[in-house]
């Protein structure tokens, strides 16, 4: 349980004069569900973007499965086993749900132009495997019936699930979810919780940004709290919850002593 999968040390990210992330450091163990919380604008999504190669970091960096990730492109990071979802859903909106997940298989498959044009036996077998796996994943997240629907026309909750299925299609070691429960109702959130527990049980580590504290506390083994780009607390969810600095960051300090959620 204690083997480190992702290690982040001294991470800085600057936007002009704003220090969006300041010396952020943490480590995620293999098989963990690790929560990332903090008030709006604390730098959670910035941390995700730095981790997945969308922004280069200004100082510090990540080690993932024993390899430094700094300076790699997003596609290289995906190939190394980090897949993510987006806070503001970024599906391939006009394609079918199935196509979305099939595109997620890109990084684990090989067929090139010649294979595609000549329809070699290897390419055909690969195509069949891609489709089969994509359908399995749609079933896994519970939207198999929606396979041929256009992504844009899916209900909001299903779009979030589709993003998870697409991310899982890249066979990640670490699944990074940016507010997956946003816009979901209570039933959907409960289903999501079960799904994430299943994902973890099947061997994928999860990094979770979430504002739904009940979900975070019920799901996460450990939690990192960011405020103004700094990590102000880290540890098991129950302990962090009672940390006065965390309560201050969330409630403005006036109501010290009241536990969160």
């Amino acid at each position, binding site marked *: 349980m204690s083997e480190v999968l992702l290690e982040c040390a001294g991470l800085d990210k600057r936007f002009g004069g704003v220090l969006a992330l300041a010396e952020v450091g943490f480590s995620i163990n293999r098989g963990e569900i690790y929560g990332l919380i903090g008030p709006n604008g604390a730098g959670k999504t910035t941390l995700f973007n730095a981790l*997945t*190669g*969308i922004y280069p970091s200004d100082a510090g960096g990540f080690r993932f499965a024993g390899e430094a990730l700094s300076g790699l*492109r*997003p*596609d290289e990071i*995906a*190939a190394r086993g980090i*897949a*993510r979802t*987006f806070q503001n859903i*970024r*599906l*391939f*909106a*006009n*394609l079918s749900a199935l*196509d979305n997940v*099939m*595109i*997620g*298989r*890109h*990084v684990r*498959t*090989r*067929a*090139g*132009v010649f*294979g*595609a*044009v000549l*329809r070699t036996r290897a*390419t055909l077998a*690969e*195509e069949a495997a*891609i489709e089969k796996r994509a359908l399995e994943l749609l079933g896994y997240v519970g939207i198999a019936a929606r396979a041929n629907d*256009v992504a*844009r026309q899916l209900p909001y909750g299903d779009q979030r699930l589709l993003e998870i299925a*697409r*991310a899982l*299609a*890249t066979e990640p070691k670490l699944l990074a979810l940016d507010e997956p429960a946003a816009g979901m109702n209570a039933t959907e959130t409960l289903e999501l919780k079960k799904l994430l527990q299943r994902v973890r049980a099947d061997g994928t580590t999860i990094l979770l940004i979430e504002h739904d504290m009940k979900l975070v506390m019920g799901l996460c083994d450990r939690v990192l709290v960011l405020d103004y780009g700094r990590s102000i607390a880290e540890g098991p969810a129950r302990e962090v919850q009672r940390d006065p600095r965390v309560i201050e960051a969330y409630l403005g300090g006036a109501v010290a002593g009241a536990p969160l959620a």
Partner: protein
Amino acid sequence: MRGANIFANPQAKWLGVALIAIALIGLPFALASVGTAWVRIANLAILFVFLSLGLNIVVGFAGLLDLGYIAFYAVGAYVYALLASPHFNLHLPFWVILPIGALVACLFGVLLGAPTLKLRGDYLAIVTLGFGEIVRIFLNNLSQPVNITNGPQGISRIDPFRFGAFSFSQTESVLGLVFSGPIKYYYLLLLLLLLVIVVNLRLQHSRIGRAWEAVREDEIAARAMGINTTRIKLLAFAMGASFGGVAGGMFAAIQGFISPESFVLVESVMVLSMVVLGGMGNIWGVVLGAVLLSFVPELLRYTVEPLQKALFGRSIIEPEVIRMLLFGLALVLMMLYRPAGLLPSAVRKRELAKPEGGAA
């Protein structure tokens, strides 16, 4: 919906395919009976279908707006002309030159693609437009100090396609049927076109085709899913360009003469219009668009003048002007009533039906 049901029946589908095949095989003789000029027009139309399918990879599949596509056609044409004409006194066989032309055009495609990878939409359009013009101006001026392209005079007496003693430019009679040069080229072009359509269809429904779609839909999400967007966009430019190169080589051989004047901006716009009119991203739509825009202007050329003469006793408006007027009107009507093209791709239709504006 009824049309879809007819095609759902496999027998009817094969019957349709057979009828189209017979029509295409018989077409050049029907045209030749009207005049050989019409066979040449059909050949040019096939070349434009070729070009449109190439451009469709860049614009339709990968969503990269290219306004200088004709440059690749020019490159292919000049490669053929330089390697098979008295200009350098080189006379390589066409099956050697066409692949070279495709390769050189492909190289130019990468040359254009590499510096423009970060550009999208309007900005990409401007750079590609400039690229097309640069190529044409180079062709116009590369006659000094060393005469490479022969400048504005162009290159003439370009070799026709030859297989040993069999030349595509000579007329032959087989079983009482007269096969003129253009008719022989027609069948060769048709065969190559069939190949290009198959290649396009297969590419579209492949891992690569899906990656192009992903890049077009959302580049950031595509990258996060592990698609190397740099490579996949360059691949689109390179593939599109090499189709253009092959078409250019055939153009040079069929015409026997080329000059920079054949590769002006209007030609790029024309090919793009064919793609847009037919239906970006849908191969059959693109074919239809190219055929329509190749034939209708020629039909007008042959009908408008006699019609005016019959009605008014003289020609009031020149055919060229009417052509452009009708062309403009057609585009406006299309944008109003069928913005995704005559035969739109399902995905494009959804994109354009998007009620909330969305990012361009």
